[in-house]
């Protein structure tokens, strides 16, 4: 099986992958920019009031997050398919057409969000402006378009996977991506019953983020370890299957932790508590998987007297290792410490959730997807061993440091909010604002903004690096 990613030069699938990565990087920048607007509004509430309100800035912030990650995910699959299957992706022409359809749809949706913002309370708003349902706000016409694009992508993956050599990684991706596309359908209807609405809404949000996306990350980590350090495929794929069992085993029923307070029956308390307590375990496994394979491969090389590093792409591997840490910390630890119902009763819907969300999305997904972008830069430039530049190091340090700083700040804010608004005051309007005006809360929001600026500066270094590192003379070609 062709596991050297350099063999795919000239592959149309890989070219399409770079298109996906490029658009993903642009939208990543937009996500950070609108995040900054929202962070400023916490500190200065009058900022862009009735021009670009918090609701709009935040909708753009979280939708851009989902979109750039989905783009980078599709791109990463198109990148690795020729390597894993040994053949060119089938249906690549349709894939390229769907790419432009997807980009056009996203641009129109973003423009409508910015310039139209809200509509009357009728179905036309739901069809053409937005659906007002956190994370899956896309208007219905775009929903249908997204389903078509996703099905086209899944079809390409299946046709290629069935025709070429089918590795364990491709098998996992095939099963995972069909679930990923199918689950989106559960978030596409309107109901007057907000409990039913929220019940199915979580089928998209939770089953994406805490099940199918995590399994996807496992497959990507496996591919990365094989390509970047030459880890043994049999060992890597064994780990991958173990992770899939643990991730789906804990993640699917871990959904219970979202069903504590939305009007659903009490038995979800026990189911949610048990399975979400298990959810960090596969993340530990993924952590060990990456570091173990690295140590094992390097150790094998050292034993034969070779002094060189086994890593053939330093910046990408840095992001992959950061993924192992970030996934365990952000999704595992920060997630775990408020999923027990006894704690969640007070922390649900506070800045704790926000702290967890920031570190988890970054640690579990952003890191590995940025790593894939570096792998693509290496591949398209035909670099044998890619080294880190100063910009690579500034980018990774400032982005990771900034997100960690935001997470700590939001955790402090959440702590104040829980004590004042929830435990002491009981979640009323006045209690809410008492919590928001606490000194520690206000300072935490200042720090969140500062750390947001650090993150954004890091992004600028990242963009510069991704555009220029391929031409640098420091690499071994």
């Amino acid at each position, binding site marked *: 099986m062709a596991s050297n990613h350099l063999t795919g030069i000239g592959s149309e699938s890989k070219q399409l992958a770079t298109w996906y990565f490029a658009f993903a990087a642009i939208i990543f920048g937009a996500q950070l920019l609108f995040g900054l607007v929202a962070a400023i*509004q*916490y500190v200065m509430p009058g900022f862009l009031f009735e021009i670009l309100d918090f609701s709009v800035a*935040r909708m753009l912030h979280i939708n851009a997050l989902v979109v750039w990650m989905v783009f980078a995910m599709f791109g990463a699959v198109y990148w690795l398919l020729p390597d894993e299957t040994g053949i060119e992706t089938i249906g690549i022409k349709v894939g390229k057409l769907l790419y432009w359809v997807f980009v056009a749809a996203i641009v129109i949706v973003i423009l409508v969000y910015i310039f139209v913002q809200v509509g009357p309370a009728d179905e036309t708003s739901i069809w053409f402006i937005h659906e007002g*349902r956190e994370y899956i706000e896309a208007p219905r016409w775009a929903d249908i378009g997204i389903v078509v694009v996703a099905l086209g992508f899944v079809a390409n993956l299946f046709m290629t996977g069935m025709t070429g050599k089918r590795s364990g990684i491709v098998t996992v991706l095939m099963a995972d991506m069909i679930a990923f596309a199918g689950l989106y359908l559960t978030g596409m209807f309107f109901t007057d019953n*907000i409990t039913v609405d929220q019940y199915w809404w979580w089928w998209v949000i939770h089953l994406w983020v805490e099940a199918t996306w995590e399994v996807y990350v496992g497959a990507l980590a496996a591919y990365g370890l094989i390509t970047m350090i030459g880890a043994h495929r049999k060992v890597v794929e064994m780990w991958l299957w173990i992770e899939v*069992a643990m991730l*789906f085993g804990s993640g699917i029923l871990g959904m219970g932790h979202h069903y504590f*307070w939305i009007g659903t029956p009490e038995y979800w308390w026990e189911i949610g508590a048990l399975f979400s307590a298990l959810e960090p375990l596969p993340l530990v496994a993924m952590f060990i998987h990456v570091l173990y394979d690295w140590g094992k491969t390097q150790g094998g090389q050292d034993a034969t007297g070779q002094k060189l590093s086994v890593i053939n792409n330093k910046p990408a591997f840095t992001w992959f290792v950061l993924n192992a840490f970030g996934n365990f910390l952000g999704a595992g630890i920060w997630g775990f410490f408020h999923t027990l119902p006894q704690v969640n009763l*007070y922390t649900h819907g506070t800045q704790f959730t926000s702290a967890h969300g920031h570190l988890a999305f970054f640690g579990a997904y952003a890191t590995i997807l940025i790593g894939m972008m570096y792998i693509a830069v290496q591949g398209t430039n035909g670099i044998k061993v890619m080294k880190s530049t100063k910009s690579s190091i500034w980018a990774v340090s400032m982005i990771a440091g900034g997100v960690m700083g935001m997470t700590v700040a939001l955790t402090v804010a959440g702590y104040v909010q829980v004590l004042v608004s929830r435990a002491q005051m009981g979640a009323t309007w006045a209690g809410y604002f008492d919590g928001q005006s606490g000194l520690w809360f206000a300072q935490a929001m200042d720090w969140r903004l500062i750390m947001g600026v650090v993150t954004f500066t890091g992004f600028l270094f990242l963009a510069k690096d991704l555009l220029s590192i391929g031409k640098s003379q420091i690499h071994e070609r």
Partner: protein
Amino acid sequence: MANKVSVWSDNRFWQRSAAWVTGFAAVLLIWLTFDTSAQISMGTDEDIQNGVTKRVPGPTVINYKITYEMSAKRGHEVPIIGGNDGKGMSLFQEKEKFFGRDDWSEEEARELLHLGKLGSQTKNCMNCHTLLGNGAYYAPDLTKAWLDPAWEDGTMMAMTGKDTKEEAMAEFLQHPSTYPTHARMMPDLGITAEEAKGLVAFLKHMSTIDTNGFPRNFGKIRGAVHGK
């Protein structure tokens, strides 16, 4: 025994385990979804007439007085519709006028709720507020907003110049930046009088959903633990 392969390092074994575990979890989730779906389906006016407590009651609850009271049996607050029977269960008797009427028919109430739920989405409430604890954290949770002391103690009524809670809420929703209550103001979202009515009905209906005691100690700020 030299050629015996350990099952623990056999990829086929782990592949099968992954398939079985995933299948088992998925089947369990689907089974639980059937049970939950039955329990969270919206009730009807007939349920209310017959004194049947539903986790999500029918839209005609807007004709009744709603409170949020401690249930000794369940150990947390529960929504009480139309008076408490003394054991933490709703009596469905005590009515309360909603925009001047307490005889909204099932159809009228359903239409109002439909408009309100649609409005809550098209006006993007969830990207500042939380509803049932989900959403953004920039503005107060709306789960029990209908029961919030701020609307009942008269300050918001005086501010908006209205005589009833629902009228004050509707007025505020139509011109939010005219009635600032905090530096973090609500923007004008072009909410019409009819839409505002629907939104208030939606909020009143949402306050009757049985959220297993969330939010806890609601209204404690006024010194009354049990929401009185």
